[in-house]
C-alpha cells in the first residue's frame, strides 16, 4: 500500500500542509497578505543544506537552524509591514521573494544555479529515514506540530491581539496592542514554521535549487490558504491536500497547474471569498447541516 509513489505524494502533501498552515498565521490571523512565502520555504531549505553539506552537521541540527534562522529573517523581512499596508505590502513581499531567489542564484556560497546537492537523510539511532514511510511519518509529525502551534496561538493573548490587528489597527492600538510588535511576531512565527518545512523538503529531495522557491510557489501556497478557507485551521489543510494531490489524479492538467490555480483564485474571490471550508461557505454549511448532531454536541462541549 505504501509504495514509493504514494509515499512521495504524502510527503509533499505533508510539507505543503505545513506551508499553508504557516502562511495562514500571517494572512489569516494577522491579516498581512504575503506573496513571498516561498522565500521563507527556501531560506529554511538552504539553511539546512548549508548546515549539513557545508558544515557537516546532522539533519536535526539543520532542521533546528532552519527554523531559528528563518524565524529571525522573517522578523527582519517583516519590517516593511510596519510601513506599508495592503496592496503595497503584497508588492513588498513579492520583491523580497525575487531578491531571496536571486541571492541563492548568484552567491557562490549557495551553489548558484547548480544549487547544493547530496544532502544527507535524517537518521536516528542508526536508522535512516530516507525515502521511506518513516520519513513520511516524520513530515506529518511536523505538520501536526505546525497545526498544534497554530491552534494554541489562536487561544493565546497574542492570537487575540493578531485578530485585532487584522480587523482594525487603530482599534487594536486603542486596547493596548502594539501593532508593530504583533506583526513582527506573526512574520517570525510564520517564517520559522515555513523554514522547518523547507528543511524537510530539502532532505527529502536531497538537493536544493533556487527556482524551486520562486514567486510562483508563493502564489501556489497562498492559493491553498485562500481556496481552503483563510483564518481557519481546516481550510489551509484542505486547500493544501486538494491542490497538491489533485495534479496527481489529473495528470493531463499538470502543465496547466498555475492556470488552474489562477482561475480557482478568481472564482473563489467572486463566489466564496471565505474559502471552500470557510465559516459561511456552501460546503461547510452543508456539512454542518448533515452532521448537525455531532456538531451541536461539540458546541455544547465548548460552551461548558
Amino acid at each position: 500500500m505504501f509504495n514509493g509513489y504514494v509515499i512521495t505524494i504524502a510527503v509533499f502533501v505533508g510539507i505543503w500542509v505545513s506551508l499553508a498552515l504557516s502562511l495562514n498565521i500571517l494572512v489569516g490571523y494577522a491579516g498581512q497578505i504575503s506573496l513571498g512565502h516561498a522565500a521563507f520555504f527556501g531560506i529554511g531549505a538552504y539553511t539546512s543544506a548549508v548546515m549539513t553539506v557545508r558544515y557537516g552537521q546532522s539533519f536535526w541540527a539543520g532542521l533546528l537552524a532552519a527554523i531559528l534562522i528563518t524565524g529571525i529573517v522573517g522578523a527582519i523581512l517583516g519590517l516593511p509591514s510596519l510601513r506599508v499596508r495592503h496592496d503595497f505590502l503584497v508588492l513588498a513581499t513579492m520583491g523580497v521573494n525575487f531578491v531571496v531567489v536571486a541571492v541563492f542564484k548568484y552567491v557562490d556560497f549557495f551553489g548558484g544555479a547548480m544549487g547544493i546537492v547530496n544532502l544527507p537523510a535524517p537518521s536516528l539511532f542508526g536508522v535512516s529515514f530516507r525515502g521511506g514511510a518513516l520519513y513520511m511519518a516524520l513530515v506529518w509529525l511536523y505538520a501536526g506540530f505546525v497545526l498544534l502551534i497554530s491552534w494554541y496561538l489562536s487561544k493565546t493573548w497574542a492570537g487575540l491581539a493578531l485578530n485585532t490587528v487584522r480587523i482594525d489597527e487603530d482599534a487594536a492600538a486603542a486596547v493596548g496592542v502594539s501593532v508593530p510588535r504583533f506583526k513582527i511576531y506573526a512574520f517570525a512565527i510564520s517564517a520559522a514554521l515555513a523554514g522547518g518545512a523547507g528543511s524537510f523538503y530539502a532532505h527529502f529531495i536531497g538537493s536544493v535549487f533556487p527556482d524551486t522557491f520562486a514567486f510562483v510557489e508563493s502564489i501556489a501556497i497562498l492559493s491553498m490558504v485562500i481556496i481552503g478557507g483563510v483564518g481557519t485551521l481546516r481550510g489551509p489543510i484542505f486547500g493544501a491536500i486538494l491542490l497538491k494531490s489533485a495534479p496527481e489524479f489529473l495528470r493531463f492538467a499538470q502543465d496547466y497547474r498555475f492556470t488552474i490555480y489562477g482561475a480557482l483564485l478568481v472564482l473563489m474571490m467572486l463566489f466564496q471569498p471565505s474559502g471552500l471550508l470557510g465559516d459561511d461557505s456552501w460546503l461547510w454549511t452543508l456539512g454542518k447541516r448533515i452532521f448537525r448532531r455531532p456538531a451541536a454536541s461539540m458546541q455544547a462541549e465548548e460552551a461548558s
Partner: protein
Amino acid sequence: MTELRVEHVSKRFGGLQALQDVSLQTEGEILGLIGPNGAGKTTLFNIISGFLPPTSGTITYDGRALHKQHPHQIVRLGIARTFQIIKPFGDLSVLENVLSGIGMPVYPSARALFQRYRTSATLKQAHAILAQTDLQDWAQAPAANLPIGLQRRLEIARALATRPHLLLLDEPAAGLTTHEAEDLALLIRSLHAQGIDIIVIEHNMSFAMNLCERIVVLAQGQIIANDTPAVIQQDERVINAYLGQEEADVAHS
C-alpha cells in the same frame, strides 16, 4: 493626582490650522468638549491619545509627557478612548471585544504568546463589564451584528476593559434615540461616580449641558469658552459660533 494638562497645543495639516494654541486642564470631572463641525475636537482627542503628534505644545498626564508616546503606551498610562466612527472588532464576539481590552497589561510581555486569554478570571472580568454596560445578552454575538446604539456601548465597554482613569468619549450619543441617550448619560455618570474622569465630545447640546460639569468650546481650532454649562449657554461668542455654523448650513443647502 491624575491631572491631564494640555499646554499650547497646535496642529497644522498642510495649510490648515486645525488647532491653535489650545490649553486646558482637567481632573476629577466630566468635561464636555463642544464646537461646530471642523472645530478640531476629534483632532484634539487624536493628539491626547497618541494617534497624531502635535505640531507644537505639550501634553502631560499625571506629570508624564504624552505627546511623544504611541497610542498603545498611552492606554497603559490609564487613558482609554472611543472612536467617533466606531471601530468594533466586527468578526469577534462582543465578549471577545471586551476581552481584547482586558489583555492590555499582558500584550507587552512574552506571556502573551503562551498564556490563554479565556480563563475563569478574565471571563469573570469581561462579564462584569458586559453587565455594567448592559450588553450581557449579546456576549456571544459577533459585534458587527449589533444595532448601532449597542455598538457605541460596546466601544465604551471595550475601553473600560483597559481599566482607565480617564476616558475620552468621541460623540458617544451620535445616532442614539433620546431614550438610549438618557441611558448612556446614566452610564457615564455611574462611571464617573466610580472615579473615572471623563472628557466627552458631543454634538447634542442638551446632552452635553445636562451631563457635564464644565464645558470647553472649540471653534476653528481655538478655545473660545471654558466654563460651566450655565455660563456657556449665555456666552455671546459661543452663540455666534453655532449660529454662524447654522447660517453656513443654510447657505450650503
